[in-house]
């Protein structure tokens, strides 16, 4: 029983990461109108940027966080014109082409990480960064809740709340929601689609950079293949929740984290991945358009 509770806490932390990634993905889908499943690859790249900054500055946490956020925003803004260029040609090329461009970007970044950064070996974050040195903050029998887990959950909650605040209480958030509901209608009332789309790239970059830091703290390490793996999980989660469904993404993201953690608590090896993917496969086969309904 204690194992179960412990693993549920674990699952909530990892689930928060999934939620953040899925939300970023959904934002790009709704406002920039692209399927960017290599978005998690960009996030992993930011993790590497944070790690490099740690190496260069001799352990400066603040600069690393900054490096992560800035690199995520920069990459997003740099790739935005690629996506927007093919969006303009809508008619003969559709949203699936954005998926292929996203794949291309993922290929380039992942392979670059495999060759050039740390010679392709996984990177590890030092204890003072991950807070692992602080030991478990909460100890209840078998339940150890680390500083990293609490931070991830906390920042995750703040980030999601912040995002919803932006969406519902600011001018640009309103524009985002209008575009999400009806891009043509939004254009007719004078909302600049391309400029607002660019904003969503920047915002998602910010979200991604923060998520990268949280992942560094929670996981303590990263490898080139991590981005792909996360990307596929994020795509699966958002499809099951319904593409573009922000609330659904919240639920399913957390659920996936918990399911994975619970499985890992009872079976060793990478079976947790296999089971998670197996469940997702069944869910998509049963309901290809998503459980909560899709935007597309």
């Amino acid at each position, binding site marked *: 029983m204690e194992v179960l509770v412990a693993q549920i806490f674990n699952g909530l932390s990892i689930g928060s990461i999934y939620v953040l990634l899925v939300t970023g993905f959904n934002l790009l889908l709704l406002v920039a109108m692209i399927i960017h499943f290599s978005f998690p690859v960009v996030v992993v790249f930011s993790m590497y940027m944070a790690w490099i900054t740690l190496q260069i500055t001799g352990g400066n946490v603040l600069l690393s966080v900054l490096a992560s956020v800035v690199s995520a925003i920069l990459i997003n803004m740099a790739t935005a014109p690629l996506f927007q260029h093919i969006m303009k040609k809508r008619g003969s090329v559709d949203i699936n082409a954005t*998926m292929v461009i996203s794949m291309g970007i993922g290929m380039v970044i992942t*392979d670059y990480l495999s060759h050039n950064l740390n010679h392709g070996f996984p990177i590890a974050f030092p204890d003072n960064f991950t807070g692992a040195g602080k030991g478990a903050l909460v100890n209840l029998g078998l339940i150890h809740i680390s500083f990293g887990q609490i931070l991830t959950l906390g920042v995750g909650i703040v980030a999601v709340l912040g995002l919803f605040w932006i969406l519902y209480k600011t001018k640009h958030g309103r524009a985002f929601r209008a575009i999400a509901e009806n891009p043509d209608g939004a254009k007719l009332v004078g909302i600049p689609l391309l400029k607002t789309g660019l904003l969503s790239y920047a915002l998602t970059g910010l979200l991604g950079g923060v998520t990268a830091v949280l992942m560094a703290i929670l996981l303590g390490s990263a490898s080139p293949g991590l981005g792909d793996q996360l990307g596929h999980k994020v795509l699966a989660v958002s499809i099951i929740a319904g593409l573009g469904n922000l609330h659904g993404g919240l639920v399913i993201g957390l659920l996936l984290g918990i399911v994975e953690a619970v499985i890992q608590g009872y079976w060793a090896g990478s079976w947790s991945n296999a089971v998670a993917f197996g469940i997702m496969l069944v869910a998509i086969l*049963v309901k290809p358009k998503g459980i909560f309904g899709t935007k597309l």
Partner: protein
Amino acid sequence: MSLTLFYFLGIAAIYILMSWAIYIPYRMGQLHFMTVANMAISAYFAAVATLSWGWPFWLVLIAGTLLGALIGWIASFAIGDAPCFAVVIVGFTLIYLTKTIIENTEALGGPLGIFSIPKIIEGTSAANRHVILIIVYLLVLLVGYLIYRMDHSRLGRAASSIFIDRELATTFGVNVKKMGMFLQTFGSAIGGMSGVMYLFIMRAISPNHFTFHLIGVCMTMLFVGGYTTQWGVLIAAPLLWGIPLILPESVQSWKIVIYGVLLISVLVVKPEGFITRPFLSKISHRIQKILFKKVEDKI
């Protein structure tokens, strides 16, 4: 024949087949990455069947192809008419599942894989290689012919209409689901076939051979070559596979990055690829003109 030439020709054929396997369902707009899972599953099936059950090569080839077709067919009941992103993620998850199961199963060699696949004929290794090349290129011819027939039939036209506008195609009486089931089954069959041939070319397999890089490379070949005709793959696959082999080592290690950049560039600059239908009809007109001139000159 040197080993290098053998591997170049053999793997080129595999790339042609795998890229065609993705080309076929993409005719109606679906990226059917499950074909890579089909390749892995049939390759491992072939290994087990050959080593443990003693099946002869031709039986393994047919069974492997049918296995691919079966899996593709069953899945297509659910995703035959699904939106592209759903087909993509089903493909990805099946690949992950397959790899994870293989890696964790001792009987399948785990992460190290299976070795010592026997020759398919009695005789020297060199003769074996010749036979394998002949077989795989016969398969390329066969598949190419089948695709040609399909493309130039009402099936091909129906697929194109679905690609352009799915709803409009339905009003013409095109059955999207049936089309999807057919194309996905066809593509998966070729995936299975490629897996078996790959096994006998390499005479060893491991989970590392079936990566998402393979998807990326096939996509690059398909899109750079041109996804609206089958000839794009035929030209792009050997070129994109062969050219890196003769480049210096330092450039070769950037292969995937170069592919990625190529893929993105093509989509932005020339989305339909290099070999497009207008390009083909221009060429065929030129050829016809030359032929007519020759006939005229003779008269």
